[in-house]
């Protein structure tokens, strides 16, 4: 089954973070992505730019900015292949974001095949 991990963290913290700490976190993400690949669980994944870069569009038109004022914003995602939800949760717990912010785990519907 496919699962989507939505990674939420405090994106403003990134703006003021020291480079050493940033490198540490990047390193953790690289190692995590690599472990996913080596276990054939990795499908896709990427970080997202700050939510100030986001646009939203509705029937009324286009607006700037993030959707919510919550402390943690969507900052990245992974798409993985896992046997079942327990397996997916195990992977999500290893994601560096689980220590920093939180990871939302969503099963992905297979449409069309």
């Amino acid at each position, binding site marked *: 089954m496919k699962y989507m991990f939505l990674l939420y963290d405090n994106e403003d913290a990134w703006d003021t973070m020291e480079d050493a700490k940033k490198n*540490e976190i990047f*390193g*953790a993400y*690289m*190692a*995590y*992505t*690599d*472990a*996913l690949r*080596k*276990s054939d669980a990795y499908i896709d994944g990427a970080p997202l730019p700050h939510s100030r870069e986001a646009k939203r569009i509705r029937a009324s038109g286009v607006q700037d900015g993030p959707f919510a004022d919550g402390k943690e914003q969507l900052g990245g995602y992974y798409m993985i292949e896992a046997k079942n*939800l*327990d397996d997916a*949760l*195990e992977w999500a*717990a*290893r994601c*560096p974001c689980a*220590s*920093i912010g939180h990871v939302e785990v969503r099963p992905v519907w297979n449409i069309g095949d």
Partner: protein
Amino acid sequence: MSDARAIAEETARASYGRLLAWLSSRSRDVAAAEDALSDAFKAALETWPEKGAPASPEAWLLTAARRKLIDRARRAKTQHQNVPALALAAEEAEAAMRQDKPFPDERLKLLFICAHPAIDAGVRTPLMLQTVIGLDAARIASAFLVSPRAMSGRLVRAKRKIKVAGIPFDTAGHQDLAPRLPAVLEAIYAAFGAGWNEEIGAEADRLDLTGEAIYLARLLTELLPDEAEGWGLLSLMQHAEARKGARREGGKYIPLSDHNTALWDKDMIAHGEAALATAWRLGDPGPYQLEAAIQSAHATARLHGRDVADDIAALYERLTEIAPTIGAYVGYAGALASAGRADDGFDLLQTLEPARVENYQAYWAVRAHILNELDRKKEARAAYERAIGLAHDEATRNFLMERKNELAIRPAGDS
């Protein structure tokens, strides 16, 4: 008002498992006993703030829960046969409490129920945590990394099975219990493990799971004093518990070799040593005793400055013979490296089936360490990477990253 609530909460924390064990061993229906007890706690929260908390909160809760259970049993016609037993049981308990005796602890009965062969192995520990310790399904789910809904479903099914299959609540015949002992030990150790990991994400009001697990193991050694493995497990957990205060410093992971031993609980170590000595005297070695002996050797090495690397390697070797788990092999490989036999350790790792170690973080960490010892820096770095990617908590991840970075600072060999 808040006083009465505090007393209710305190009673829930301290006595939930014992009240539930008492009620369910009489009603033979864990789920019904849980519902009745939860109604009783609800009633306490409504009544106590107005009328004041009773002198014996446990007796009050038991009486209230007993009434709810009898009401339920009467409503469900099929349960009629249990009504007299329930009424009698509650009178018996209330009489015992009136005499100021400590409330009888029947949690071991529940423990053996939870580890019954009819109960799916994967749900035994969660069931034990819920019924014996009173942990809620959501917390258990998070400790075992499954979704709360799935965990609730598993627990409900297990309790239905206890009732429908009529699993006996008697612990009178100890000879019947011995075959179930390994499952009980495994469940207690898993509870300890869940508590151990949870400590890292320290929250103020968490339950003392590791303490509860040690308490249950001690209870077990009282009920079955001739079972060496019960003493072995008790000793193993006491040794680990003794070092709890030294394994992190400001959120940073500290390996055993760097622990500040002033932070170790020496009384707890003494208890661990005593339990291990009792186990050995019974002359029936098993995996928990060997693991406890390994921890005991580590403690001796650090506290008395003795070189025990060869002893530890020998203990691990014995462990792989009687309990050939992947963890035992990885531990053995690490012990060989510490005893100056990194080559042998590496050869041992090479014999392990790749599919079994693919996602096993300890394997990659030990492999990285051994490759580093062998001066195969490039491969060591790749293994550290893998271990970092599989780490669950930040402290472990950062520790491994430091190790990996040390490789980069001191380039040697093929890097």
